């Protein structure tokens, strides 16, 4: 990837008059010596795989540790019964984020976006958007390119792995990617996209990676929900004209600095945070005994 900043993508977009997503796609075309059809099709397949993965949810499945399973269905039922405050859009997003996280923990097929642990954030907001707004699939694929461009810049300037930078690097990045995609779908320009992702990342700065028993289950599955809802709130703010006072690229740099300062017990080692609570340790001992 030739981009080291969101600023660069926005500048190139202004210079050429091409959309943010096109600049990202052209970079892939250059790098892989691929045609635009090839690049677009490859991304479309990933989006269709997200759809398939969502449809393949099995409410009766439990993960091997039995810590995870069935929660997405509970939220779905509560939504249908009219018990949720978050409305039809928000409620559906919560249910889908849980379902995808549960799919992952139960060894079903998912799309890492950017990681397996954070695989619920993007499909939760994008599939719900497509369903409820009746959006064309090609625009959904364009939004996937927007999200990927943001992810690439984060990976170059900071990191995407919990082991490297804590959960802010996984769920935080997924959330920033999703916010940018939503801002694009809602008509935002490059600047609006970048600020939507900056606002999102700021909200999750410092989030630690503390998986109980080292498994991608607790608290990972439910953190996909906060990533998705945070993305909607930030995209809404950005569309309304709210801007991050700290420029988006500097926010990403801050994420890196915070991640590097994080003790290793809070970076996917399964030692600190929730993993280190008395119950977390009890669960770990039980899982290891299995």
């Amino acid at each position: 990837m030739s981009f080291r900043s969101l600023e660069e993508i926005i500048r190139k977009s202004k210079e050429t008059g091409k959309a943010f997503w096109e600049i990202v796609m052209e970079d892939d075309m250059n790098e892989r010596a691929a045609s635009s059809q090839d690049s677009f099709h490859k991304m479309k397949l990933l989006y269709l795989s997200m759809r398939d993965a969502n449809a393949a949810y099995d409410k009766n499945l439990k993960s091997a540790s039995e810590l995870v399973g069935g929660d997405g269905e509970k939220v779905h039922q509560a939504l249908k019964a009219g018990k949720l405050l978050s409305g039809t859009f928000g409620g559906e997003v919560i249910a889908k984020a849980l379902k995808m996280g549960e799919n992952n923990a139960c060894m079903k097929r998912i799309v890492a976006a950017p990681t397996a642990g954070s695989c619920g954030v993007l499909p939760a907001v994008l599939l719900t958007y497509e369903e409820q707004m009746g959006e064309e699939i090609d625009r959904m694929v364009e939004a996937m390119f927007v999200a990927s461009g943001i992810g690439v810049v984060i990976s170059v300037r900071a990191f995407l792995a919990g082991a490297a930078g804590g959960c802010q690097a996984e769920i935080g990045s997924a959330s920033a990617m999703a916010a940018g995609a939503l801002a694009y779908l809602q008509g935002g320009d490059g600047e609006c996209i970048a600020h939507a992702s900056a606002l999102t990342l700021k909200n999750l700065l410092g989030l630690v990676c503390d998986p109980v028993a080292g498994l991608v289950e607790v608290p990972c599955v439910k953190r996909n929900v906060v990533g998705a809802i945070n993305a909607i709130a930030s995209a809404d703010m950005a569309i309304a004209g709210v801007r991050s006072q700290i420029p988006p690229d500097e926010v990403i740099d801050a994420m890196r600095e915070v991640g590097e300062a994080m003790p290793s017990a809070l970076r996917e080692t399964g030692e600190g945070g929730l993993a280190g609570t008395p119950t977390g340790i009890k669960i770990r001992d039980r899982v290891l005994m299995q």
Partner: protein
Amino acid sequence: MNVFDVMGPVMVGPSSSHTAGAVKIGLTARKLLQEEVLSADILLHGSFLATGRGHGTDKALIAGLLGMKPDDERIPNSFQIADELGMKYTFSGTELRHAHPNSVLLKLKGRAGRELEVIGSSQGGGAIKINKIDGLDANFCACYPTLIVHNADQPGHISEVTTLLAKHGINIATMQLYRDKRGGRAVMVLECDQEIASQVIHTLEKMEGILKVTYLSLEEKDEFSIIGRDHKKK
């Protein structure tokens, strides 16, 4: 970092390193063995040993050895499929020296009698490295057609191998050399830009001083999709 390194891959969960990477290590080892796996002794190291089970690392390795890819939905059932196909396997823990935390030692026997020992590690995000083959350093990513030649540590073998490749129009992308001791057993690892035809491999195998030739092809060959259509339908 490419767009599609960030978005994707499509994979069976829960972990790109402990599940998808483990499938890839198994699959690569199977390809290096160049035949169906009859038995596998699997020794897990570090984080693979500590948290592998909860991440399905064990099932993932078996799935790879059976020829499955990281997005294969049969991965959770790989033990059962291995049993049905008569592939034997054992799991145990080990401590490997200077190894990556996500490492595994695979001791394989093939149906036609080939034997192979591989140490592989999962580097994160689904990327892997093959660190050793039959006890000698290898260190390749399994993302190029890769030729591994074990030879007696004598003058001339490197030039013989590279000349033969040049004659067949094969460009060498990277090349590494290791040996256990002066005049002992040496290994050259060549990552190539083109696939190497099997008759070239056979010519190499017959050369004097060449002890073993292992080749990783990235081509999708039918003999590797061994599990057959019956299982696919299940």
